[in-house]
């Protein structure tokens, strides 16, 4: 299996607080990788390192490397906007723009300079179909996205991402504001998307990690305690700390 991303000895400091400690981990191509661990252990921070969203926070210092297809994304020469088009992100709370549904979906294309109506229309349809929204939304493309129910908003955010054809999709607790039925739907969708995309998901929900992921990493206090195939990690962890967390004795 190819490594899409390879994280090597990554340290991250928020001011003087070290949130990630020498984290190393692979992300395999077209697999789902889950990051689990108790609240505050650095899962979101690690995820946001992969598309350099942490750059937006002042006072962040990062050392170490994260290779995307073998190229360090923390190189000085990295085109950060280009990186974020390749490594897209779905946030914890659905955050559609206060624009019509259609404009949300084609936003990434407009930003990239695409203005051809036909291309935009086709991409919008394709992306909405891929996020299983087309049938519900095709007749109200010009209504405001904010008026949709939360689960549709979240899948709209996914569609908006798929429109720019990323290679990697980062998801930070994408189901935390959704009900169980909507959650199941997103999980099913992830398994479908896995055919074309590499997915990294942060989740608090261990059943979810077990259900959807191929690989899992267990983090604690900024360290990657154990990383491996989800099957192994959940049934036969090699670290005592992981076992305690999985069996619910802690966290």
């Amino acid at each position, binding site marked *: 299996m190819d490594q899409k991303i390879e994280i090597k000895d990554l340290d991250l400091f928020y001011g003087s607080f070290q949130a990630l400690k020498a984290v190393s981990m692979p992300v395999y191509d077209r697999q789902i990788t889950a990051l689990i661990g108790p609240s505050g252990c650095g899962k979101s921070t690690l995820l946001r390192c992969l598309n350099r969203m942490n750059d937006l926070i*002042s006072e962040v210092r990062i050392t170490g490397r994260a290779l995307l297809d073998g190229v360090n994304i923390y190189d000085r020469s990295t085109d950060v906007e280009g990186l974020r088009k390749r490594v*897209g992100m779905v946030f914890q709370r659905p*955050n559609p*723009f206060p624009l019509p549904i259609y404009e949300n979906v084609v936003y990434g294309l407009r930003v990239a300079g695409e203005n051809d109506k036909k291309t935009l229309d086709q991409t919008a349809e394709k992306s909405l179909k891929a996020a299983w929204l087309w049938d519900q939304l095709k007749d109200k493309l010009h209504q405001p996205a904010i008026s949709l129910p939360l689960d549709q908003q979240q899948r709209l955010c996914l569609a908006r*991402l798929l429109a*720019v054809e990323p290679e990697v999709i980062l998801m930070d607790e994408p189901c935390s504001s959704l009900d169980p039925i909507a959650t199941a739907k997103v999980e099913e969708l992830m398994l479908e998307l896995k055919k074309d995309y590499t997915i990294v998901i942060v989740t608090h929900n261990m059943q979810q990690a077990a259900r959807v992921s191929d690989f899992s990493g267990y983090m604690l206090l900024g360290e990657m305690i154990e990383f491996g195939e989800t099957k192994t990690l959940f049934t036969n962890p090699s670290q005592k700390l992981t076992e305690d967390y999985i069996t619910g004795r802690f966290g």
Partner: protein
Amino acid sequence: MPVTSEKIMQRLLLAVAFSALSALLLIAVFIISQGLPFIFRYGFREFLFSSQWNPQAGKFGIFPMVVSTLWVTLGAMAIGAPLGVAGAVFLTEFVPRTVMRIIKPSIELLAGIPSVVYGFIGVMVLAPLIRDHLGGPGLSLLAGSIILGIMILPTIISISIDSIMAVPKSYREGSLALGATVWQTVRMVTLPAARSGIAASIILAMGRAVGETMAVIMVTGNSVKIPGSALEPVRTLTANIALEMGYATGMHRQALFATGVVLFVVIMILNFSASYVMRQRKARR
């Protein structure tokens, strides 16, 4: 003991609030009672749309002043609005928050500078510059617009910053995460989301510009005529009242109060539309 002093304080504050309010109300009533009958007697259209302002001859047409006020205000908006909004965008998006926290109060402080100081700078610096480089007497419509444009900057910048900062961070993050640049994010997401607050800031600033008197008297030259170009001197409605009130009697005095009524109505309309635009935004959230 504390209970009674509490009560006394309450009464006292109530009395203060009441007298302040009633003073304002009295002023409004006074202006209207002095001005409105004149407008009806003289004729609404004749008053607003005739170009003859000759108090000695009993001619009270304020049209030149209306037009001048309009031009000076529009000029001020053309200068102040883009500068102010650009300044707000710059300070919120391209400058570290800590720096912005220092600069914003300093800008708000500029609103506290007495307008006579702005006028003084206009007379000493701006008018000669215009006279030497562009021609005309220097004291002109253009000078008034520029000075007013600068005077309204604090209003526009401060309110625009507040409304840009009120845009949820998640919009910005969502846009940047799709590979948009900071500038694209500002243009396509942040500004549209903040537009009602920005519009309100511009309308409020317009109210300030229409109502400003001292600085305008000092820099616009004050001749009563419809300006043929931006370099000609003009007289605004506010300037007209301030310049002539000292010696006006009878009909003349009432005509000036009537001018005040016109200003009063215009500024009321502007302020109401500003708060209406603001409320629209709250309702949408």
